[in-house]
């Protein structure tokens, strides 16, 4: 029983890590970033390359990936997203185009493959990230097998959640963010530099994706296509949770993660995913605003 809960929690925490950044950009800025999965993927590749060439310890890859993905997110906002405010579906489409580009860039070693140069660690093949030993030893607590790495993920997810909460509700930046997301024009009239707030928010959400990427790299193989299904999952979580609600994102990743885990235990992974999709469709139809929708958006 405890194992079922644990696995569900583990899946939920991974979902949450991916969905959190999405929830922030969608809820606060009204932007659907379909390239979010690629930001996760790039975080994973950051870990691959950093460990391979710079011998950065695994745990330090997380802040590094945060910076890398965050920077890419910042650039995305300034160059692309900024032209599309108010055009929700267009942000979905344009960022999807961007995700094409990002995937292909990794495939061709950022262009070097055209010149015949192949960099180990990039390219279309699979990559692996070795996890440090202290994170792989199984631990027994009360007759129950704890997988340390999965617990680590849950821990990181919680920490990032706390960090996000603190940022949004306890800093002046967060206040500005809430003002801009409630009423952009008024906020600008009050002297808040809404464009800067947007750029930094997008960067933060992307940075979170980067961290998720590092953690995922320890769980699965890394390849250029790993991000595609993540962004869809993440997006479903956000929509079910309710646009603009972080609490909703938490609740829905917990629910969906748990259900995924349960069904996978009884049948198989494929059926589990199908069940989650079916559930999401039903929820959106019955309660289009999601489980915890905030008013006003």
């Amino acid at each position: 029983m405890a194992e079922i809960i644990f696995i569900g929690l583990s899946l939920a925490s991974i979902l949450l890590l991916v969905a959190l950044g999405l929830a922030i950009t969608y809820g606060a800025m009204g932007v659907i970033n379909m390239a979010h999965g690629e930001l996760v993927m790039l975080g994973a590749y950051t870990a691959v390359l950093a460990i391979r060439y710079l011998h950065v310890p695994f745990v330090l890859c997380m802040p590094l990936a945060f910076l890398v993905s965050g920077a890419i997110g910042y650039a995305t906002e300034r160059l692309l997203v900024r032209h599309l405010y108010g055009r929700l579906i267009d942000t979905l489409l344009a960022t999807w185009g961007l995700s094409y580009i990002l995937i292909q860039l990794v495939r061709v070693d950022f262009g070097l493959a055209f010149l015949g140069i192949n960099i180990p660690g990039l390219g279309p093949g699979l990559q692996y990230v070795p996890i440090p030993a202290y994170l792989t030893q199984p631990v027994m607590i009360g007759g129950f097998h704890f997988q340390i790495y999965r617990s680590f993920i849950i821990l990181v997810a919680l920490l990032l959640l706390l960090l996000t909460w603190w940022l949004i509700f306890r800093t002046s930046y967060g206040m500005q963010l809430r003002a801009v997301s409630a009423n952009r024009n008024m906020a600008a009239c009050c002297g808040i530099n809404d464009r800067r707030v947007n750029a930094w928010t997008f960067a933060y959400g992307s940075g979170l994706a980067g961290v998720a990427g590092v953690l995922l790299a320890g769980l699965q193989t890394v390849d250029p296509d790993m991000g595609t299904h993540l962004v869809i999952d993440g997006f479903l979580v956000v929509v079910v949770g309710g646009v603009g609600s972080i609490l909703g994102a938490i609740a829905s990743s917990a629910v969906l993660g748990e259900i995924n885990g349960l069904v996978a235990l009884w049948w198989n992974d494929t059926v589990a995913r199908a069940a989650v999709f079916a559930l999401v469709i039903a929820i959106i139809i019955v309660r289009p605003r999601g489980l915890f929708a905030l008013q006003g958006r």
Partner: protein
Amino acid sequence: MTPRVATVVGSVLLIALALVLPALVGALWLNRVAQFMTYGILGVAMAIAWGYAGILNLGQGLYFGIGAYMLAMSLKLAAPGSLEGGTPMPIPDFMLWNAAPGAPQDLCCITPGSFLWIPFQREWFGVLMGLVVPAVVALGIGYTMFRARVSGVYVAIITLALALLARLVLINAQPVTNGFNGLTSLSFFTVGGIEFNPYQPRTYYLVVLVLALSLVLAQWLVSSRAGLILQAIRDDENRTRYLGYNVASYQVFFFVVSAVLAGAAGMLYVVTAQFASPTFLDVAFSLSMVVWAAVGGRNSVIGAALGAIGLSVLSSAASETPALLNAWQLLLGAIFIVAVLFLPRGLAGAFNDLLRRRAGPDAREDVVPALPASGARPTMTGP
């Protein structure tokens, strides 16, 4: 030249080109072009749903896939390979391989769910289901969504999730659908004794015919009064409702038409490519349909069709080498972004705008227009 004239001229040129093509290229390329033309039908479907109805269907592949599988099932049963097991009735080879030892060699119960295949022994049933099942599914999901007034983004998500859901179900139902492998080793499509070998010109002409018919049908539909109201709904749903129209019924109707067209495209694809696979329900495929419509011009039936065919031809040409393919994908991503940012009505729309501008500046009145002279018409004043 006005946009309308351009459409007609373009269509005529295209049809002329399509008709003489068999004399110009070999059987292999002809078959490929035929496949791309089925994509053209998908472009038409997207134009109706997205361009005119304003419904972004991110899972159009679902209906394509359903149509494909329906016909493929019939063609599989008709294939000589299905009788090789020595069974009295045709049984798909994968079922024989998947069957539990000692299972009855009968289509009704050789594997769980195999009875679903029974009616497909008649080819017309497969064709019929290829049109009816997408319609029914679209009717169900469309009615549910539009009645509940689900808005644009959520429609996109639901259609996407539905396609992915169907894909998973398809893959998981291995005993019935052959899972990942899809349906292969199919017989040729046969109508009234005429066999449609994928590499023969007659198959190509069949596709051209259906494409032409769907272009005509789509154009007729969108230029009808219903099509006008549909565009009004796309512009302002509430206002249209307020004028007394049942908005949901219009959305459902055109959504279903779009799905049926996609189903027909799927069937034709099976005729030309001789297989049906769960990859038809991949996100990537559905998304590429959106890209075709966005680049070609979602508001133009012919533009979307040409976008589909043109981009597919280019993709196919680019897949000669991996490097070229990657470069093409990069370029495609960039083109897509450009289209979304700057060309909301695609290349067709930009072309039309150019034509309009060359037709001369409009005598538009920016000043307050004068009312007719004092002799007001008798109908305006009261009794």
